[in-house]
């Protein structure tokens, strides 16, 4: 029986490259190709790099030529960054996915499609179900541009799945990732010497550990299920608890000023603004139910919500000079619990 042929779209990103690295170790995979506009950041041994822009129609010629049976789309961008404004994000996320789906429809050998999406589709509101299940998408208003993009591209994938019943389409809805050496705006926010928070708010968060994020992606690439799957750790943790575990002094700011303050501070300290989604998330929080991930995708996250933070806190001390000035450490030293 011939092995599998996998194409990873967005291989220059962290998740695409990590997935390629893991699949290379899998003897059941015969051929791996990576598509992106620039080469992957890490050295890959047996991954073919195909230089192509996901937004261009050339994908429709390149993809069928690979004779792939699995396509994993890791090219969805979450955060605007310098040189990559929100408009480019929309192009890559929506138009890019549309081009990719068109190319997939031309690829007769294709059996599985995995899209690495976002749990932002559920939104962040004050009063919501505390654990969204996959069927609750779009029950809340789509307030930010990124949310609308995610919702739109999911609709395209759903249409594609309906038109091609033989093709197994799986959308992974990721909660934000956290990891000791993961560089995202959220991680940079948590690394700030003094972390601004929104006065009076304490959101419930679920941050998935980077290992689990890659693990779930690998599980989905190996044996995808139909439809949407939430990727999140079990349990949840509040922001105040996160910041205490990570020993970060906080600075509560009235919430209308939080976004602008973070943007100003971000430019100074290189933390990067979090934009609408992040700001709403750090006010209201969001939790999703990961039952489908564990039962159907058969992936059991190694870290729960608190464990992921403990691992992050243990391995990344944050940026500070001199001894910790966090109250917890000070009182700990006084009471003799910490020396």
């Amino acid at each position: 029986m011939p092995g599998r042929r996998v194409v990873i779209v967005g291989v220059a990103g962290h998740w695409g490259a990590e997935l390629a690295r893991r699949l290379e170790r899998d003897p059941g995979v015969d051929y791996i190709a990576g598509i992106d506009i620039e080469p992957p950041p890490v050295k890959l041994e047996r991954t073919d790099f195909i230089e192509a822009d996901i937004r261009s129609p050339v994908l429709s010629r390149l993809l069928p030529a690979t004779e792939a049976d699995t396509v994993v789309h890791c090219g969805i961008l979450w955060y605007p960054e310098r040189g990559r404004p929100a408009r480019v994000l929309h192009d890559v996320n929506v138009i890019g996915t549309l081009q990719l789906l068109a190319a997939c429809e031309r690829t007769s050998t294709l059996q599985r499609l995995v899209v690495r999406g976002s749990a932002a589709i559920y939104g962040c509101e004050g009063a919501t179900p505390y654990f969204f299940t996959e069927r609750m998408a779009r029950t809340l208003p789509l307030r930010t541009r990124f949310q609308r993009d995610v919702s739109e591209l999911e609709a395209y994938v759903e249409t594609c799945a309906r038109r091609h019943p033989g093709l197994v389409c799986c959308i992974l809805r990721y909660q934000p990732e956290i990891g000791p050496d993961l560089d995202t705006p959220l991680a940079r926010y948590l690394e700030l010497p003094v972390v601004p928070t929104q006065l009076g708010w304490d959101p419930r968060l679920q941050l998935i550990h980077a290992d689990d994020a890659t693990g779930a992606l690998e599980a989905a690439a190996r044996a995808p299920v139909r439809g949407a799957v939430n990727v999140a750790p079990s349990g949840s943790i509040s922001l105040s608890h996160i910041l205490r575990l990570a020993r970060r002094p906080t600075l509560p700011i009235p919430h209308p000023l939080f976004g602008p303050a973070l943007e100003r501070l971000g430019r100074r300290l290189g933390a990067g603004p979090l934009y609408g989604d992040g700001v709403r998330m750090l006010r209201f929080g969001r939790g999703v139910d990961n039952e489908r991930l564990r039962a159907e995708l058969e992936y059991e996250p190694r870290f729960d919500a608190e464990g992921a933070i403990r691992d992050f806190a243990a391995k990344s001390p944050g940026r500070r000079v001199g001894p910790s000035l966090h109250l917890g450490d000070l009182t700990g030293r006084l009471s003799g619990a910490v020396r």
Partner: protein
Amino acid sequence: MNAQAQADSPQAVADFLRRMRVGIEDGLDPMSAANRAADELPQRLANVAQLVSRRLRGEYHEDEWGFDEEFAEAVYPLFEFLYEVWWRVEANGVLNVPAHGRALLVSNHAGALFPFDASMILLSIMKQHPLPRWARFLVLDWAFVLPFISAFMRRVGGVPASTHNAARLLGQDELVMVFPEGAKGTGKPFSERYRLQRFGRGGFVEVALRTRAPIVPVAVVGSEEIYPKLGDARPLARAVGAPFVPVTPTFPWLGPLGMVPLPSKWRMEFCEPIQVTDYGPDAAEDRRLLFDISEQVRETIQGKLYENLVKRRSAFVSPL
């Protein structure tokens, strides 16, 4: 024991400072002097300091709903004061609350400014049940778009009122409190006190049927006098998005002082649980049945309210 610790503390702080001065006179730097002084603190104070330090270092547990048991225990004495002294709560039939497993407590809702009934029901179970357990309560959505209040509610066991949340909690064998009257109950004028409002769409019965949780009706007398609502500042309510803004004899005239609830006498009664396990699997979709059970619960509570109103005699003076 607690009062003892408080009485001790000024003395202990003075001792601590004295020892610290001795340390500095011995030529130690302030940090080591503080360390040495702290080593000699009396045990009780050291325990408190250790608890505080442990909290600040994040060494505590919160469950997946954000309920923080230690925090709830820390604010417990305040509510205990309201329970024992302020409202002199008398609770009957607490044994009707199952000692383990899931159950849905359904109660009348009142208290225009702050509905304290949830906390008092919770306390009566903690204080009087032979096997005390923390109950969770469903809170009006609006409270969860407010800063401070939303964070506080979540830590002591509140969750936004949603059938998904209720069903998940019951699925985890928790005790869940719901107030089907919702804002209609808390916002009713003083003249209509103890007249139960419409019970929504019967969503609570649907959840109980789906999760096969027994329904325990609870009648609370006394809560409807703590903030006599005489009027409603409608334009203000519309401006801030609140369901209503009450006007009471003291609020908003006396400012923050107007938020002090009146010390009425409370009586609480937990009724016999209504079992719903006998109904078939698709009973939860039967509108007729939902309304029937909802009405049965409503009538039970209404009946018990009248009964307890008579037994209570006076609203503010407790009989000797």
